[in-house]
């Protein structure tokens, strides 16, 4: 039963991608709805099938292994081809290295006789994210891409939907397979999908940024491939779950584990690899939402969390924790200085992935639970925020935060959904903050990590608060007409309600998925109880129910007392110099003509600007990685 679900989860998305290729544009909406329903149903089915592992052996295995080999060769050939075509020599050089390593491992590494899939609770969570959030994003795209292409005179939707669906297949494979060789193929396939989608616009900027993503992820891929070779030749380990359990002691496998972590850092766009994710923001918004915020970048942290048993409570783990928390604070500071909403979200994504890595590095049961939960909650919130930004861009024609003031008047529902997304990133009782709270409590053992987390969390509050305030402010500019399409507003509302529902059910989610998973990884479960609407650990309690109740009470009180004080509307205060004959919102200046008042947020570009921080960030993050590696070897 489980075997069938797993195979369907990989093959049906491929089938959908082929359907997108053959069928006409008019059918895309139906296809996307069908895909969304398929994804939801089958990911839930997989959860209901329970956990377990199964092997593929015999003739089935031989056949699939051949397909895997052919695909691996095709991936390398494709990279050769595009990098030669666009004369991108660094990428070509990396492709040569990848090819050499693959050839080496083909000749020297003993062939495996079987491959295994391992469905644990973490895989289930990832499959739920990929297939529900991912297909919701594809559904959103059907209401988004026509207008996007119209603005840019493009006609490449076949490529777009093909790659997006194919990516979901690859990602499903990545989070379910246990055999490292196959995992590597899926890993490289997601890199490739990302490259195709980033260079979607086919202009110079898009292609350059696509190659940057490809090159940096190939660096990670090389690191991954070397780790596989070391593991299989020296330790005879060929599965991901084997690294933690089969190895004699954690210290022995530290080098390959460190290499795998570096591959994870590259995929999760941690400093110093983060530039590819910022460049990726040239792609259409659904791509940013699917690949670069809620799904593909999770592949990196997925591997890192899965490797926890191999580095928990070692110096390598501490190095990883410091590195992750450093990225968290650095990218939060960088996000503060950005006006471009997509760049703010990109930095925020990198920062939150850093927080996940820091939690994994701390390696206590509580911290690992926080890491897995943050992957889930962050994916939902970030997908919503990205899609909202895309829709805002189509509504007001800009992604500059300053241009978004007055949005609540122009598109109320969209603004409330975006506000929900932001609030869920920075305030309790929502899941992201709960996990931040858990990771802070877990990190309080390590002075450097906790200070980084404290600073980063204050910075996070600031950059979301000012954006939130801006979209909620009601300047009275002329109204714009919003096009409320079901394909765009359904995914948005769906993700919005998912945030609320998962935050209310947080303890049930923890109990069903996270606790057993942490037990599998570390042989110890965090001491967490869930009485009285609290998420209580040994050292504290997160009272989410109380906050939901007070929030509901506040709304009730507001509605009840609203009519006690009959409101009288007036225009806002301008020192008596309003333009009374017009909209009353402009200042009268000394020449008796009118000036619009213009207020901008504070961005502190001179302190936290990219030009100030990026170099420092590169230097320190590279030093930290070298320390992690050195710790691994010694």
């Amino acid at each position, binding site marked *: 039963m489980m075997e069938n679900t797993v195979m369907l989860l990989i093959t049906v998305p491929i089938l959908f991608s082929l359907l997108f290729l053959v069928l006409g544009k008019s059918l895309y909406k139906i296809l996307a709805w069908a895909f969304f329903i398929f994804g939801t149903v089958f990911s839930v089915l997989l959860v209901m099938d329970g956990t377990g592992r199964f092997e593929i052996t015999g003739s089935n295995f031989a056949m699939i292994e051949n397909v895997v080999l052919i695909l691996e060769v095709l991936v390398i050939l494709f990279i050769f081809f595009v990098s030669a075509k666009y004369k991108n020599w660094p990428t070509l050089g990396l492709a040569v290295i990848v090819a050499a390593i693959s050839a080496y491992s083909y000749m020297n590494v003993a062939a495996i006789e079987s491959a295994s899939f391992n469905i644990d609770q973490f895989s289930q969570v990832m499959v739920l994210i990929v297939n529900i959030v991912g297909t919701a994003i594809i559904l959103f795209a059907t209401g988004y891409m026509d207008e996007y292409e119209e603005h840019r005179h493009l006609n490449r939707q076949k490529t777009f939907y093909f790659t997006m669906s194919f990516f979901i297949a690859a990602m499903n494979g990545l989070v379910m397979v246990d055999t490292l060789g196959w995992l590597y193929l899926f890993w490289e396939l997601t890199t490739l999908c990302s490259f195709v989608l980033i260079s979607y616009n086919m202009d110079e900027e898009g292609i350059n940024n696509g190659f940057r993503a490809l090159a940096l992820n190939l660096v990670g891929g090389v690191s991954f491939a070397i780790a596989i070779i070391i593991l299989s030749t020296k330790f005879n380990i060929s599965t991901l779950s084997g690294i933690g359990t089969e190895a004699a002691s954690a210290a022995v496998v530290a080098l390959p584990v460190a290499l795998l972590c570096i591959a994870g850092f590259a995929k999760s766009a941690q400093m110093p690899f983060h530039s590819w994710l910022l460049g990726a923001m040239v792609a259409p918004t659904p791509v940013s939402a699917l690949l670069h915020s809620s799904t593909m970048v999770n592949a990196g942290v997925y591997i890192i969390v899965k490797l926890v048993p191999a580095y928990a409570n070692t110096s390598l783990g501490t190095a990883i924790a410091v590195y992750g928390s450093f990225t968290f604070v650095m990218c939060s500071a960088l996000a503060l200085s950005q006006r471009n909403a997509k760049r703010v979200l990109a930095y925020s994504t990198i920062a939150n992935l850093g927080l996940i890595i820091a939690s994994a590095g701390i390696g206590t049961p509580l911290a690992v639970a926080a890491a897995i939960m943050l992957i889930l909650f962050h994916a939902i919130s970030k997908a919503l925020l990205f899609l909202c930004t895309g829709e805002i861009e189509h509504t007001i024609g800009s992604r500059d935060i300053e241009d978004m003031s007055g949005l609540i008047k122009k598109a109320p529902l969209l603004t409330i959904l975006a506000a929900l997304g932001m609030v869920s990133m920075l305030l309790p009782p929502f899941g992201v903050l709960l996990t931040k709270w858990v990771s802070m409590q877990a990190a309080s053992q390590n002075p450097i990590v906790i200070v980084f987390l404290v*600073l980063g969390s204050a910075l996070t509050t600031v950059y979301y608060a000012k954006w939130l305030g801006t979209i909620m402010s009601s300047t009275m500019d002329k109204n714009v007409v919003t096009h409320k399409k079901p394909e765009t507003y359904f995914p948005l509302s769906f993700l919005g309600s998912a945030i609320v529902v998962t935050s209310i059910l947080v303890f049930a989610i923890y109990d069903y998925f996270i606790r057993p998973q942490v037990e599998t990884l570390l042989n110890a479960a965090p001491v967490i109880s869930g009485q009285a609407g609290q998420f209580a650990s040994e*050292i504290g309690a997160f009272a989410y129910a109380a906050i939901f109740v007070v929030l509901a009470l*506040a709304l009730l009180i507001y509605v009840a007392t609203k009519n006690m004080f009959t409101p009288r509307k007036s225009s*806002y205060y301008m020192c008596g110099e309003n333009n009374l004959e017009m909209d009353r919102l402009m200042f009268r200046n000394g020449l008796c003509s009118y000036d619009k008042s213009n207020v901008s947020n504070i961005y502190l570009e001179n302190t936290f600007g990219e030009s100030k921080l990026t170099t420092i960030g590169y230097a320190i993050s590279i030093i930290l990685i070298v320390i992690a590696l050195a710790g691994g070897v010694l």
Partner: protein
Amino acid sequence: MNVNDILTAVLVLIGAPIIGCLAAGIDRKLTARLQGRVGPPLLQPYYDVKKLLSKDNMIVNESQNLYVVVYVAFMILSLLMLVFKADILMIIFVYTISSIALIVGGMSTGSPYARIGSSREIMAILSYEPVLILYALAIYLVTGTFKLSAVLDASTPLLMYTPLIFIAMLFVLNIKLKKSPFDYSTSHHAHQELVKGMLTEYSGPGLAGIEIGHFYEYVFLTGLIFVFWTVNPLIGVLISIAAFLLVIVIDNITARVYWQWMLKLSWTLLLAISIVNIAFLYITKPTLV
């Protein structure tokens, strides 16, 4: 939850605004005396609120008073959690909700004065939030738990191990009470070049709500200071009162600074002394018993 808890909660709900109101009255009286005026009666803040509630509900948009309700509700919740000795980190997060509500409320009016005031208040968050969380961390380090009950059960005062964080918290008190030299987002004094900053568009019942919220906030913030010396509650209260009076005196003898100055002060001096204190706790590993 038993009868005692409910009684305590009711007592806090009713008692806190009375204490806060008196504190605000003392503030105004003392300030007047320092400026050589007679000053208003002690209950003037109460008369103000009463008057404001009877005024017309003038608004610039429909939702601005919702933020006031959220502000007051979460102010009360954080105070209740403090009284019930909950998780200090959680209390700080709940308190952040009320701060953010007021900021977004100010920005939602769209008034240029309010938006500048709110922007500056956001910068205030950047200045004080790290110090507040380090204060929570210090409590964890000396008690082994984030729950405040451990501090209250201990027989040694927290202040013994956290003198530097105490100093940093005095600055936080100054920033959060919006007193000079940090009163640039909104101020009780009439020297604002931003009219009333963040609260410019609030009048009548809305402003009354904010004032009531402030009363709770006075008690909450001095309550955070009280935690430093809970062994003998009397000394704790005296320290809290002294801290409050100190802030009022500072308010009257200093002039407002640029917000940049506050940010520099906080991210250099305040963070440095807090981190030194935290490092000391990591190295010596004292336990509060």
